[in-house]
């Protein structure tokens, strides 16, 4: 009997006007080739975020979609948000 824990990036999505890259990691627990259970973990890469430590496929998506134009547009949107600073 062999039990294996396998992690894979099973979904990479490009979402919204600012091309946020949504990443889903799937973890499978496998016994003798049969999947006993699986679970997901998620995170998001924003346009102005460092992605050098991401999986190569995620990096490729970031390079394609996080252009300087998108980054500038995203940073402009953030700067225009009101923080409701009250203190």
């Amino acid at each position, binding site marked *: 009997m062999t039990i294996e824990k396998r992690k894979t990036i099973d979904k990479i999505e490009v*979402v919204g006007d600012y091309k946020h890259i*949504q990443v889903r990691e799937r973890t499978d627990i496998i016994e003798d080739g049969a999947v006993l259970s699986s679970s997901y*973990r998620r*995170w998001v890469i924003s346009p102005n975020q460092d992605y050098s430590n991401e999986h190569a496929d995620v990096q490729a998506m970031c390079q394609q979609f996080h252009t300087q134009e998108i980054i500038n547009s995203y940073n402009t949107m953030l700067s225009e948000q009101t923080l409701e600073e009250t*203190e």
Partner: protein
Amino acid sequence: MGGYIMASTINADTTNGVVVTSDTSREIKLQSAGADIATVNSTGLAMASGKDLTLSSTALDASASGIYLGGTASANLLDNYEEGSWTPALTATTPVTSVTYLHRTGRYRRIGDLVYVTGAFQISARSGGSGQIVVDGLPFNVSDELPSTAVEANGNCSYFGGLTVAKSSINVWAFGGTTKLYFTATAAAGSTTMPNFNITDTSAANFQIRFTISYITDA
């Protein structure tokens, strides 16, 4: 050998079983005691009024398109459900340089474009950082739906500890267009405004917090 079954009932009892209707209607009906249970035709499978579709040992796979509830407009389409984990990361408006966690965990449920998250962590060491407490790493981007404000959704903290400044309650809000949560805190003596919850209000050695929030994400 192929062939056609003309309008007929596949059962000795003519009011039960599979009824194959004439070629012009091109329907197959399942009946019981003379009443329709379900009909299959060119538009699909339709359950008769008052009859339920029950799946006892397998799941309904609607992953390719979703399920309409309460109508058939796009606003009635439920096309996403997912549950999993995320990793909350403590930082501040001027980011912290390092954090050591005793524990941290985050869970999420996504139903359509509504995301419900819980998070909890306790730190044993922190360095750097100033300004308002920020937790980064939400599993889905916070949709920027409300104009002229970054505050897109609000939640609360069910537990906190390791503060250096007394607070009576701590709340959390989601920053539109990001994966960040910001925190506010009411002073022990109360407040007429909603003051920020700052990183300097917490101990660098044992700050801990647990929180929940629901927000809308981009479809």
